């Protein structure tokens, strides 16, 4: 058994069986992470480079831990302070790194499609750690894995994705992943932050009313407002956004049921999510982070073992 893809560029390219294989493998890595020695020697002959052209805390640490716990050698690269500022191209940068006998690339880039472009020019498997406003596949996998862990299954569950859908790669990857696993998805947010024709294009429900969406949902995945990607203001103020779309205790209490609260991080406390909700028993935000390491170990394991690497 192996994945149907050579790179993990997006959930869009995956089959349902691929996602289930990742989960099945991640289940066992979760067990490894509970052991006194949280490390296996599987990738000890593999070197992985984490190429980050964009800031990251969770994803980068999570990938690095996953790599180290698989026994791989790890090199980190961030664009700031590198020769990128001297004008080196993406392909040159990565090819130079690969010529130092690096076997796999984990890349985050602010341009949508950057890893897809790179995959046409290099041999090594690439894991997309987030590209612009396109996809963040490992986040979607760990989100769905966390729902499966909390609710027993993803199939048939109702998931509301709340907030900045327009600029969120997490939203797009989550929609693909959840739909492939047979969940129902509603996206909710201000009209200016939800792309048009989303219902037809991706088969999701769209609403502009957060209470309606949460009353329907089993799970709410609350997204961060991505101010850094908004060139023109799409709502009047953070305070107004928070009043209309913020998930807070009062809103949740009015639902008469306990829904699961998720957030991919980093949280803007008091904007899209209030602190008392983020830190409540309903929240599985830290479980998401914990599962991220196991999911990334599974992805790296499956891609590394899918074929012979470093063909030189």
């Amino acid at each position: 058994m192996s994945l149907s893809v050579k790179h993990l560029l997006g959930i869009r390219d995956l089959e349902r069986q691929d996602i289930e294989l990742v989960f099945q493998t991640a289940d066992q890595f979760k067990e490894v992470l509970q052991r006194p020695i949280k490390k296996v020697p599987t990738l000890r002959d593999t070197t992985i480079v984490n190429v980050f052209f964009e800031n990251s805390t969770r994803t980068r640490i999570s990938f690095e831990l996953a790599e180290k716990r698989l026994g791989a050698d790890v090199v980190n690269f961030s664009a700031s302070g590198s020769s990128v500022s001297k004008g080196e191209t993406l392909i040159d940068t990565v090819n130079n790194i690969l010529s130092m006998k690096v076997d796999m690339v984990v890349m985050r880039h602010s341009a949508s499609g950057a890893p897809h472009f790179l995959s046409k020019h290099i041999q090594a498997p690439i894991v997309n750690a987030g590209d612009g406003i396109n996809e963040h596949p490992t986040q979607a996998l760990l989100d769905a894995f966390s729902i499966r862990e909390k609710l027993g299954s993803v199939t048939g569950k109702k998931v509301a994705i709340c907030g900045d859908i327009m600029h969120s790669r997490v939203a797009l990857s989550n929609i693909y992943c959840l739909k492939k696993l047979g969940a129902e998805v509603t996206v909710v947010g201000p009209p200016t932050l939800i792309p048009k024709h989303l219902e037809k294009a991706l088969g999701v429900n769209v609403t502009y009313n957060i209470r309606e969406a949460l009353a329907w949902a089993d799970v709410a995945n609350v997204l961060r407002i991505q101010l850094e990607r908004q060139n023109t203001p799409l709502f009047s103020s953070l305070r107004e956004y928070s009043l209309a779309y913020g998930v807070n205790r009062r809103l949740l209490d009015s639902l008469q049921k306990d829904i699961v609260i998720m957030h991919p991080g980093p949280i803007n406390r008091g904007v899209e999510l209030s602190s008392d909700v983020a830190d409540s028993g309903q929240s599985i935000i830290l479980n998401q982070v914990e599962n991220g390491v196991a999911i990334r170990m599974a992805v790296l394991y499956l891609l590394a073992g899918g074929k012979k690497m470093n063909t030189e």
Partner: protein
Amino acid sequence: MKTILNGTQLAITIDRLCHQLIETHLHFEHTVLIGLQPRGIYLSDRIHHTLQKLLPGTPIPYGKLDITFYRDDFNKGAALHVPSETDINFSIENKRVVLIDDVLYTGRTIRSALDAMLDFGRPATVELLVLIDRRFTRQLPIQPDYTGRTIDAIISEKVRVLWQERDGKDEVIILE
């Protein structure tokens, strides 16, 4: 196809292996059983069950170990293996471990298992119990301490252990 052990013989063999274990380990005070995933656990389930019947009132710690992440053929052209569950909820530090697998062939699985076990502690001793020992096929210096049946089979032949729980009947066969 040739039958090596039928259902009755298999039951007798498992009983004998259990008595041999009791002979060595007597009260099982410091002994733990570890079955190897995925195929060895059917045997280790039986052994554990039988021992608990023979020694009522003596709880014997029993775990299952998956060696997928410790294989020496990862990324060496072999098919990718999907891991099975590892379930060892006790420490093996200073314990007398009995590793249990169905067929001993090249010995590489056992080598991986020895590696994997170190991540759970340093056992006092490790013994190996197998149902079938294929002679003259070893690639590593590994030998069993308890053997159900020793057979000679050429490389092209496959030994299959069938279990009631999974295959509908108990039997050990050789396939050409």
